[in-house]
């Protein structure tokens, strides 16, 4: 299982390199070299991982908050405020990845 996953990852990483190896050198140079395709791949994968793990974390937070609200409806307002702040703090980690992905896609600091 793990070996096949690693092979799949290597294959994914090899695809743009192979495609670039076949492309004429002039075309590759006018498109800015080999970093661009990798940057696009990395941006997509990074956002996918970040979104998935952020969803796991937020799911745990919301589950326990809803649990607490069901046990103590009187404290629901305070729990909800704390939950929203916590969700914002968790979400900001995924937002960092989004910003990095956008830098890779739009700003392209390394050509």
């Amino acid at each position: 299982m793990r070996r096949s996953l690693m092979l799949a990852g290597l294959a994914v990483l090899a695809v743009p390199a192979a495609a670039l190896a076949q492309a004429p050198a002039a075309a590759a140079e006018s498109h800015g070299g080999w970093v661009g395709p990798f940057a696009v791949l990395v941006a997509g994968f990074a956002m996918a991982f970040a979104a998935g793990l952020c969803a796991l974390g937020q799911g745990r937070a919301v589950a326990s908050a809803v649990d607490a609200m069901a046990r103590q409806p009187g404290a629901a307002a305070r729990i909800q405020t704390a939950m929203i702040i916590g969700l914002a703090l968790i979400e900001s980690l995924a937002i960092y990845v989004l910003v990095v992905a956008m830098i890779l896609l739009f700003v392209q600091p390394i050509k």
Partner: protein
Amino acid sequence: MDVIEHPPILRLPGIPDHVTYTWLVMIVLAGLAFAASRNVALVPRGLQNFFEVVLEQFQQLIDDVIGPEGRPFLPLIATLGLFILTGNLLSLVPGMSGPTTNLNTTAACALVVFFSYHYIGVRKQGALTYLKHFMGPVPLPLKPLMFVIEIISHLARPLSLTLRLFGNMVGGHILLAIIFFLMGLQGLIGWALSGSPVGAVVGGIGGAVMIVFTVGFLYPLKILVSFLQAFIFVMLTMLYISGAIEEAEHHGGEHAPAHH
């Protein structure tokens, strides 16, 4: 971002878009405030009533989070909240560009928060006492380490405030832009109008589904996110201010009931 997003309709030459639309937000807010407070009545009606309700909500929030000593900071907090909310909602109007979708605007707001809560803390407890609280309740050998960690965490606050607002707004914008791009004249609707029978069926149905999805789901979601992000920015500002002024009471004998 001009790659996927159409530039806004109104552009002043030589001035960046986010500055133009920041001015627009300023004009809107100042005009509304002026119109609401032009003839203040004891029994409020109309616009004055609306603004009193809004500001009372802000004051209620401040009382809940900071306590009554937070009342003097109502202008700072309410201005930040109203500006960010109006900027977020303005970016949803087609043909407009929201000021909060630019990193410079959100960084400006976050830096204002950063400097003002340190200023409030120093004013409240004096520079030395304030700096001493960065070292935390740890034994003496650990204090320098704690100090460095606290400095880093305080420096991360404006960064996270900036990037959270910016990323949420721009992420939603990219999503909307891609949906419109899929839907537009080069996408499904263009396919429906291209004259081929298959395109008319698939593109027509797909375009209709996309329009219903966008109007019925994505736009309400974006409006919710606009309110939520403004709320979170204001809430974190209040937490930082309350952290800066509350630390004085930790050494004043009895501990306040934990409400962090």
